[in-house]
């Protein structure tokens, strides 16, 4: 175990070193793969029962860096390493079109980023956790700043840095409160002692932790950095940030919220559930209004984190309300969705990167017809899009199904008040699912299908295999985990009941490797439904192609009907047009602003040029963060008058201080 740890550390370090010093990035990529493999092996061993518990001699005496591998950590390490391996393979090829300096920077920082995320999940005490956490934030910040010459990137990076730092400070505060109350910085001791703390203190700690992890996980009021920062990072890094880094925050929330703080008052769970509902609905709504592909995906991360948070919230409620089964299922749902989102979101970002690599850019309105030109990328994008939309038989559906189950169970068993919350959750989840599907119809339909809208899209070619294979692997996993839901659900349920100390309910929760059965009311999904589905589709397809051939003339390809005219490249439905009804229907939330400028010759009816510009009001920027920023700056401007340049004033400060001290201090 310890050797695996050291070799993983060494390999990632070597990868960073090679990335920084060598012209050729291949060695760096190989070393990063080795690092990922070492940590993956470590995680697998840990999941099989081996234990690692080491102290690294860093920092002055009372501090130490303790690392451990409980099953929960091992799961996340496996996730990070697995996705990290694929992203590294992709990244090795992707950075080829970067300038030398940027390529080196990306190759150096990516392994460090992976390493720091791994270490966060392995950390077992305050110092180790926070150091790895901040290292994670800083490396990702540096990666976001890859295109640092552009002013909007500087702004995006700054917003990210500040938000993440504020989050880290909240965590620090929470951890220090715990340290102060328990006299130790070790997670194990916290877990033992935290339940005995004063309720007010525990709640304060919980809120701080929620703020800290919530800002990293991009729960709704704290999400503003994400749609700024993710699009500007290199695509595989965006994939890692969105697919994995947000999950590290989820890990933290589970670790502190469940293992350390234990069952809290009801409002903890309700708060998390409410934030989840808010995040999922608003995330997907904002995604719909976007036509920058990577920003759109970034907003979907907000949505999916919201879904995860809904699971976590229900689990917290269940833990409190002494419904262990409910809690276990809800936490299983959250864990499952965490893994799912890591898979499909990374795949989506990789595909978005491939499209960018192919020279098409990020704007959906400039794409079109890419499925024919980039078949593998297109297929992986289609599969990942269906998965993220929560459609059967893909993995996104399984975790949403589990979330529905937990919400329904909460509605059935939790009493009137909780039932109402559960209803809100169910409806929000349903709305989210429908909107997400709509959004990804837009992405796949406008991006991949139809005809190319620009020259660039016409000239697009498939990317090298090193780039599309990782995406295909991820897409394959999405399908596989959807068809065989029990493969993950069973171990996750075991893990969840371990985290919740609900060991006795385990055997009934999930049986078999392929079938998910819940111990209530016979609700289950499994391959049967999907097999029927597959059979029906196959039968229909066979029938359609075989039976028809004899009775009708051969198929023909013709130009589509366009009211008798020719269809120009831009007369297809664009992403903007597609989202128009949504903008109108949800106008209360979007507060859309539009301007149409019409230029006409001779007569108003003869228009020469119509320019349409529509955008939506950034509600949180304008109404939440704007006032805060203005307030801070106004305060600062006021405070700056202290140093007015007058020596007499300064002397006066001394005099007044002295007189006040003499007068009031005894």
């Amino acid at each position, binding site marked *: 175990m310890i050797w695996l740890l050291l070799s993983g550390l060494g390999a990632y370090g070597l990868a960073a070193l090679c990335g920084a010093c060598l012209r050729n990035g291949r060695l760096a990529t190989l070393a990063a793969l080795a690092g990922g493999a070492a940590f993956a092996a470590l995680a697998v061993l840990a999941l099989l029962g081996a234990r690692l518990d080491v102290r690294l001699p860093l920092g002055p005496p009372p501090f130490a860096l303790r690392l451990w591998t409980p099953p929960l950590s091992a799961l996340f390490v496996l996730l990070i390493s697995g996705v990290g391996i694929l992203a590294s393979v992709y990244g090795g090829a992707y950075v080829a079109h970067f300038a030398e300096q940027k390529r080196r920077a990306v190759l150096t920082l990516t392994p460090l980023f992976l390493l720091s995320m791994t270490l966060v999940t392995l950390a077992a005490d305050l110092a180790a956790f926070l150091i790895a956490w901040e290292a994670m934030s800083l490396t990702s910040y540096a990666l976001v700043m890859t295109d640092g010459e552009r002013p909007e990137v500087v702004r995006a990076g700054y917003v990210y840095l500040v938000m993440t730092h504020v989050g880290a400070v909240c965590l620090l505060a929470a951890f220090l409160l715990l340290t102060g109350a328990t006299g130790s910085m070790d997670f194990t001791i916290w877990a033992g002692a935290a339940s005995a703390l004063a309720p007010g203190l525990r709640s304060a700690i919980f809120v701080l932790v929620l703020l800290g992890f919530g800002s990293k996980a991009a729960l709704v009021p704290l999400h503003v950095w994400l749609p700024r920062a993710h699009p500007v990072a290199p695509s595989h890094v965006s994939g890692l940030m969105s697919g994995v880094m947000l999950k590290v925050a989820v890990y933290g929330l589970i670790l502190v919220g469940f293992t350390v703080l234990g069952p809290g008052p009801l409002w903890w769970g309700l708060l998390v559930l409410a934030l989840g509902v808010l995040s999922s609905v608003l995330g997907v709504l904002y995604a719909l209004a976007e036509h920058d592909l990577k920003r759109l995906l970034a907003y979907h991360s907000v949505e999916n984190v919201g879904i995860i948070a809904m699971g976590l919230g229900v689990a917290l409620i269940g833990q409190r309300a002494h419904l262990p089964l409910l809690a276990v299922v809800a936490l299983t749902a959250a864990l499952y969705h965490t893994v799912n989102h890591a898979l499909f979101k990374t795949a989506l970002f990789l595909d978005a990167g491939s499209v960018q690599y192919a020279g098409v850019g990020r704007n959906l309105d400039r794409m079109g017809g890419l499925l024919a030109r980039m078949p593998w990328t297109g297929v992986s994008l289609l599969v990942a899009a269906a998965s993220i939309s929560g459609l059967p038989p893909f993995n996104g559906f399984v975790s949403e199904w589990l979330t529905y189950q937990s919400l329904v169970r909460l509605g059935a068993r939790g009493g009137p008040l909780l039932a109402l919350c559960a209803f809100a959750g169910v409806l929000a989840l349903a709305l989210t699912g429908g909107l997400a599907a709509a959004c990804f119809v837009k992405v796949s*339909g406008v991006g991949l299908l139809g005809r190319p809208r620009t020259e660039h899209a016409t000239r697009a070619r498939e990317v090298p295999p090193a780039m599309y294979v990782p995406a295909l692997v991820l897409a394959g996993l999405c399908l596989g985990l959807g068809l065989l839901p029990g493969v993950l659900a069973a171990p996750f349920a075991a893990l969840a009941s371990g985290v919740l100390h609900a060991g006795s309910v385990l055997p009934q929760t999930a049986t078999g490797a392929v079938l998910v059965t819940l111990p209530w009311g016979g609700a*289950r999904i499994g391959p049967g*439904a999907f097999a029927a589905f597959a059979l*029906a589709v196959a039968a229909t397809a066979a029938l*359609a192609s075989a039976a028809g051939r004899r009775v009708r003339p051969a198929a*023909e390809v013709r130009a*589509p009907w366009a009211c008798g005219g020719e269809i120009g490249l831009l007369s*297809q439905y664009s992403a903007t047009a597609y989202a128009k*009804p949504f903008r109108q229907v949800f106008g209360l939330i979007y507060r859309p602003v539009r301007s149409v400028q019409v230029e006409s010759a001779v007569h108003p009816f003869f228009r020469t040029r119509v320019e349409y510009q529509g955008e939506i009001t950034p509600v949180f920027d304008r109404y939440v963060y704007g006032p805060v920023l203005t307030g801070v700056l106004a305060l600062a401007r006021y405070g700056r008058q202290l140093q007015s340049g007058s020596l007499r004033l300064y002397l006066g400060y001394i005099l007044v201080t002295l007189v006040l001290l003499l007068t009031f201090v005894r």
Partner: protein
Amino acid sequence: MAMWGAAVGQALAVLLVAPLVHGLIQRTKAALQGRHGPGLLQPYFTLIKLWRRQDIRPTPASWIFVAAPRLALGIVVAATLSVPLLWNPAPLGWDGDFVVVVGLLALERYVLSLAGLDTGTPFGGLGSSRESIVGALVEPALFALALPWMVLAGSTAWPALVAASASATPASVVRFFGLGAGLIVSLAETGRLPVDNPDTHLELTMIHEAMLLEYSGPQLALISLAQMTKQLLVLALVADLLVPWGVGGLALPPGVQPVAVLAKWAALAAGLGVAESLSAKLRFFRLPGYLGAAAALSSAAAVLQVWGVR
């Protein structure tokens, strides 16, 4: 094995009956509008006619365009297998629950919307966009419809839902609200009048038809069949949730039961036709309010259920 046999049997039966139900609805509408109207079997003839036509595809279309009709039909048929149509539980009821059925419906819509965008025409995109937003709004309404019974049963499995609905007070506020919502939802899901107009190809008002404008011949036949099957499925879904008698709860002699259930369906289909005839097309942007009313009605039902109002 018998189970699979039953499944295949039911699938075939559904495919066979679905056009008839469609015909029944068309017939009702014609009668109410004072027209002579086509015969009950007209949908069969239309399907056969389409099936024999040449298959024409638009230039920009990819394999999605070809796959979509097959997928759509397969998806809908698979969905019918887990919903109790004649018997409770359905042939494959043990493997799919309410959520799966809603998911499959969404999948069908997703696939067809993609096909609409695949044609590269303005109409396809227009239809897809509108279809998507209707779908997004219908999904919560569907869930809301099932909420009272989910809460009562503590489960989302079909047998439990049907049993819960059947065991509840027959004439209660909850069911009354639910029926109202169910009507709205089924009108929307089947693309009928206040939401969409299945009988028109007037460009600016259509939704579903705009999406499928480029389909013709056998492909269109498959889609139409899928649409009719879905219609049946939605009726069954609403019936199972709100008027489950015959399928669950009420014990009928084995010979009478299928007949009774078929009669129930006929009544529901006719009711759908009546409802459509009574309503005028809504402006597209009024739809959220309309579907929101459904969601509100059924949520109110669920809340009443929780508070013990029967």
